[in-house]
């Protein structure tokens, strides 16, 4: 999460790398409860997220995207 980009920056990096026809095919919100499914998120960071992230933002702390692009 700390290294994730905004979608527009991800797409821009793809284009700068030489990709064309960049399509974002799917966008799925990732909630804090979704994060808790992953053993990579420990109790400490989950508690931090639940405490510090505004309640209205907690259902979508990130967006999982599927991107396809052509070389």
């Amino acid at each position, binding site marked *: *999460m700390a290294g994730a980009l*905004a979608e527009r920056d991800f797409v821009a990096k793809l284009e*700068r790398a030489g*990709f064309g026809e960049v399509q974002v095919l799917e966008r799925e919100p990732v909630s804090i409860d979704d994060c808790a499914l992953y053993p990579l998120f420990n109790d400490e*960071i989950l508690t*931090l997220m639940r405490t510090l992230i505004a309640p209205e933002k907690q259902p979508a702390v990130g967006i999982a995207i599927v*991107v*396809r692009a*052509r070389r």
Partner: protein
Amino acid sequence: MSRDLMRSDEIKAFVRDAYRAVNGSTTRVAERLYSAEELALVPESARTGALGLGNHVRFARIEPGATVLDLGCGSGIDTILAAHRAGPTGRVFALDFLPEMLERTAQAVGEAGLGNVETVEAEIEQLPFADASVDVVISNGVVNLSPRKARVLAECARVLRPGGELCVSDLTIDEDDLPPEVLTHPAAWAG
């Protein structure tokens, strides 16, 4: 040093340690992302270790005979689905920087009875493949883990043949929505 000023090698070490510590004992992620038909093709050992973010293989245009590169194969669930699509005349390279993950993928590939997968230990910033040698690059929640994303994407472009495709799932965020205490926590670099 502030954690948001960590060097690339420190970030990689965090990511490496976090993934190495995962024991792969849940199917919850796999069941959230993949259909019952897809999961039926995948041995339990790969289902229990799934840590991806999406189901991009569903969107990837993998033709029979294709050469596919799976960046950060983990326990191998996407590698196996791609290998079924590429068929016996195709080839899937399952690449990861952790030998432990490659062992899990090799085990799952063996259990699936697939003979068209080769595991490769390498960094995603420096792919050990010739220019224009791959038809499709797939990856699931891995690009965001790299401190050198432009380099990763440039390497993908280099190894793909002209007209080849990259099809990946990845996490995007709005930094303004996340407090610095979260963004600078070590676990946030791996999760």
